[in-house]
């Protein structure tokens, strides 16, 4: 009992720390990727290749003046960002990153807690997320913020339906609501994943689209459309309160990506079994990256790169070597696959943001109700029919 609490506390701490770092660096990745899409270098000044930029941002946000505008509804104004970030982080707690591991004699799951109804829990929590935005918009006592809040609540309610419907199809195939067992049913190789095994291409795409809308990302970022609404619901927020919304958005992105991975892409399951060498993929990747970095370091573009690139290369090589250690392989490999899949979807998020324009509001709602929802329902019906016929 006591060890359970201790382990849980440790896990909470680890996940929280990693998550916060990831949130900060996701921002860096996003800026970098978009910059490269737009053929510019992106953050470059703070640290090598701007690697320390997130740290600088954090310092900036913390030390900024925390301004509370007059005529706001103070309790709700303070409550909203807190609520948004809480709900965003809460859903991470049931997401499993990998199978059981054994550390110092204690067996535990790479997951904070498993619920029988994990999927429902995430749906519930994400449906609560709308309050953060709506209340922020209302409490700010600002018409742009109010409009942003209204838009976002309507948008999130609307897109929650196709999202749920899209989730329901793989659940029918896997026949469980526990995220852990969900992965268990997809074990094996690529062809056991719900995406391929269950022909869930439609619901995967619907899920991603609805996920984009749920997280208020481009092309569905109407609540914060800056050319219409200044900055939407967080117009009146500054400093850490602003950062809370910001982090909530990125945390939600991670949740959606993880959900997509767990529901459709087999979670931490490797694309092909280990006996065919899937275990060496990370080694090859990291070693290759390290070698490329070293080669670039030999003829650097800038003078500084003479030192930074070889350091990065060596780090990559060490990571590659770590993947070869049998002791850590059992938990590091699943983690790698999970993060690789989630990362790929996160990259898609960023990619879309870099390339697509924004919807008009009526198009957005029409798209949800007239196209996405019927598509998801039809797919669900078809899946249900097939499942009923096969079983």
């Amino acid at each position, binding site marked *: 009992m006591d060890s359970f609490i201790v382990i849980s506390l440790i896990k909470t701490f680890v996940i929280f720390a990693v998550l916060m770092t990831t949130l900060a660096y996701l921002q860096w990745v996003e800026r970098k990727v978009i910059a490269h899409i737009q053929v510019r270098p992106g953050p470059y000044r703070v640290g090598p290749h701007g690697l320390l930029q997130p740290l600088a941002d954090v310092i900036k946000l913390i030390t900024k003046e925390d301004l509370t505008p007059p005529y706001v509804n103070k309790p*709700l104004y303070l409550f909203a960002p807190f609520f948004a970030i809480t709900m965003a982080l809460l859903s991470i707690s049931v997401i499993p990153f990998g199978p059981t591991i054994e550390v110092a004699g204690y067996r535990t799951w790479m997951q904070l807690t498993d619920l029988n109804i994990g999927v429902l829990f995430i749906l519930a929590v994400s449906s609560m997320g709308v309050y953060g935005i709506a209340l922020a918009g209302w409490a700010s006592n600002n018409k742009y913020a109010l409009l942003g809040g209204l838009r976002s609540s309507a948008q999130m309610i609307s897109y929650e339906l196709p999202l749920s419907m899209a989730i329901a199809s793989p659940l029918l195939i896997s026949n469980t609501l526990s995220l852990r067992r969900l992965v268990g049913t997809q074990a094996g190789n690529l062809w056991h994943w719900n995406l391929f095994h269950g022909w869930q291409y439609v619901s995967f795409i619907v899920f991603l689209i609805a996920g984009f809308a749920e997280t208020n990302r481009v092309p569905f970022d109407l609540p914060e459309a800056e050319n219409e609404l200044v900055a939407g619901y967080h117009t009146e927020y500054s400093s850490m309160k602003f950062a809370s919304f910001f982090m909530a958005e990125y945390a939600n992105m991670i949740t959606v990506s993880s959900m997509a991975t767990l529901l459709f892409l087999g979670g931490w399951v490797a694309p092909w079994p280990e006996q065919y060498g899937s275990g060496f993929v990370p080694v090859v990747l990291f070693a290759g990256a390290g070698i490329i970095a070293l080669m670039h370091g030999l003829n650097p573009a800038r003078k500084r790169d003479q030192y930074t690139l070889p350091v990065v290369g060596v780090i990559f090589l060490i990571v590659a070597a770590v993947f070869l250690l049998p002791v850590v392989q059992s938990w590091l490999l699943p983690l790698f696959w999970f993060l690789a899949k989630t990362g790929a979807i996160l990259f898609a998020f960023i990619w879309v943001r870099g390339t697509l324009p924004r919807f008009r509001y009526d198009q957005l709602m029409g798209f949800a109700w007239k196209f996405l929802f019927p598509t998801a329902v039809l797919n669900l019906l078809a899946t249900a029919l097939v499942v009923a016929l096969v079983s």
Partner: protein
Amino acid sequence: MDVILFLVFAIIAVLAAINVVVQTHPIASAVSLIGVMGSLAVLYLLLGAEFIAAAQVIVYAGAVMVLFVFVIMLLNAGAEVRKGRSFMASLLGAPVLIALLALLAWFVERIYPESVGVHFGGFTGGGPDAIGRALFTTYLLPFEITSILVLIAILGAVVLARKEID
């Protein structure tokens, strides 16, 4: 542990419920009501009703109350004005409420003197599979009728809320 859990969330629920009634501003009431619903969801978990707890949050807190908040924001409803009065309500209201509470409590105490104890995990039949099984066998007809009801409600809401028919 269970007692602490119950007491904490029961107190939150009661306080939030009082806040629902006491607050003059609808949005404060709405937020308090969400609080009530959230704590009730935890109590449902304690009673082994996992699915109902999730549905409580998704349907009540996540959909119904969002609608409320949405409407309040849309109408920009301010604090209520104390205009007009109900003689009946002010005269009979308080005694009736006290009587109601007293009677209900008396009933509960009288009928459940040696009540069963509730502890976490005491009832595990409230998962989604059990609910689904009951829903699509014993309660199939009510379920279908409810779905028709929802359809009618959607149509009704659309008809009521749309702009003038031109």
